[in-house]
């Protein structure tokens, strides 16, 4: 086979390998997201339920700028941390991530934010959808 012709075929093989890896990654992300929904449903704390949605989101926005904007960007389109628009993970997943963090990637906010704060943050992040 001519080397240039073979180069075309091998480039296509490389692209297919990357696409296959991307497809596998997308499947794994979907599975992880679905698994997060198998956990018990997220129940906002009682103090939050009493707040009007606008109040809750305003509180969440303030908390976001004080705690999250540094990494996720003022517009939440991501900086050092990922873009928070159109999140397809559950509220429980977001709450767990905020409270526990992820080692080496995101700090834990368990001591800084209580359940009501986290619920307000979730309400604000959902407005970004």
């Amino acid at each position: 086979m001519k080397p240039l012709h073979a180069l075309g075929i091998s480039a296509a093989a490389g692209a297919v390998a990357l696409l296959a890896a991307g497809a596998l990654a997308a499947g794994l992300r979907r599975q992880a997201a679905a698994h997060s929904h198998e956990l018990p449903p997220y129940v906002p704390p009682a103090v939050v339920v009493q707040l009007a949605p606008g109040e809750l989101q305003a509180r969440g926005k303030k908390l976001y700028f004080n705690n999250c904007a540094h990494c996720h960007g003022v517009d939440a389109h991501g900086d050092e941390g990922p873009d928070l628009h159109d999140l397809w993970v559950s509220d429980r997943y977001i709450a767990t991530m905020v409270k526990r963090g992820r080692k080496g990637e995101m700090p834990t906010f368990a001591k800084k934010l209580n359940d009501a704060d986290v619920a307000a943050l979730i309400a604000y992040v959902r407005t970004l959808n």
Partner: protein
Amino acid sequence: MDPAFWAKVHGATTHFPIAMTFVACLCDTAALCFWQKPAAGGLRAAGRYAAIIAALGSIPAVISGLVMTRGDMLGHGELRWHHLFVWPAFALLVVAAVWRSLVRDQISRRGYVGYVGAICLLTALIAATGYWGGELLQTFP
């Protein structure tokens, strides 16, 4: 299941393709240096098979890495650096292995020089990938 199972599998599967890529680079560079010598044919064949075996060995390494990170293809911090090098390296490794298996020894010296250049670049990418993988171990001991 052991929560670190996939991390262990990833560690067990990555070193083989890394080593084979280095072997391919050494053999092909030596074959280029000793182009006129009788041993050059054997070195070219060794480089070709090493590249093909490295590409085959990279498949379980990539799959275990993706499962370990739950499908995160980029991530942040050290993981992001690891991924910035691993995806070009993986694609280039597949391209190199497929190309070598198709052209075999029907290749001019000029074409071979280009191939050796690509293999050297691939080896550098693999080394950088391994370096950031090692840095990840510092973060996640």
